[in-house]
């Protein structure tokens, strides 16, 4: 009786992991720039992996495995979003423009590492020291 309940919990968690993991991998291919891809991959990396941990916790055969899974979940909750933040800061600092649907005239400023020097496009109508960023 107990095993049926735990298997149903694991089935629900694994189904959620499959749905979110598929969505994350599809988003990793279909989105246009690294920021949007990082949104999709954070979905995959946090929700899907955490669902796998929850399902594994329901199916854990012994207390030794279960306690290690809990420690792993606690550490993953810290390290996953922090890693995403590091990647996002790297992408922003390396001067990658965020994708925008239609940008015929206004181009975003590019920023580089070190110093707050801002380069505008030559045909940009914005004044040099103000604007989007």
């Amino acid at each position: 009786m107990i095993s049926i309940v735990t298997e149903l919990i694991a089935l629900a968690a694994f189904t959620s992991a499959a749905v979110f993991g598929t969505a994350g991998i599809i988003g990793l291919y279909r989105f246009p720039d690294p920021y949007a891809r990082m949104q999709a991959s954070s979905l995959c990396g946090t929700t899907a992996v955490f669902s796998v941990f929850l399902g594994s916790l329901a199916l854990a055969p012994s207390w030794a495995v279960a306690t290690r899974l809990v420690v792993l979940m606690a550490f993953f909750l810290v390290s996953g979003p922090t890693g995403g933040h590091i990647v996002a800061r790297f992408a922003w600092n390396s001067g990658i423009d965020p994708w925008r649907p239609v940008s015929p005239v206004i181009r975003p400023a590019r920023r580089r590492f070190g110093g707050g020097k801002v380069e505008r496009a030559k045909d940009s109508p914005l004044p040099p020291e103000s604007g989007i960023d």
Partner: protein
Amino acid sequence: MRQILLDGMQWFLVACAVGAVIRILAGPSAADRLVALNVLSGIVLAFLAIRGVMEGQAIYLDVALVYDIFGFLGLLAIARFLKEKAMGAGEDE
């Protein structure tokens, strides 16, 4: 039932890892590759947890914890290294 669930999840994670590796190889910029590397780190972590539960061996989960720590530090080190490389290229110009 239990074995079917764990086996299915294991092969699903293998498929996701293949997708992330293709993105690492094909990514046009370094930021794309770092994003895919972050995903791959999480997928391998989940794979190790699944293997540990399937075999009933707690040693897989110890390996998974250490892998998570070193994957995080490795991501930090790669981002720092690429940043210094980009700054050096900017100073040369």
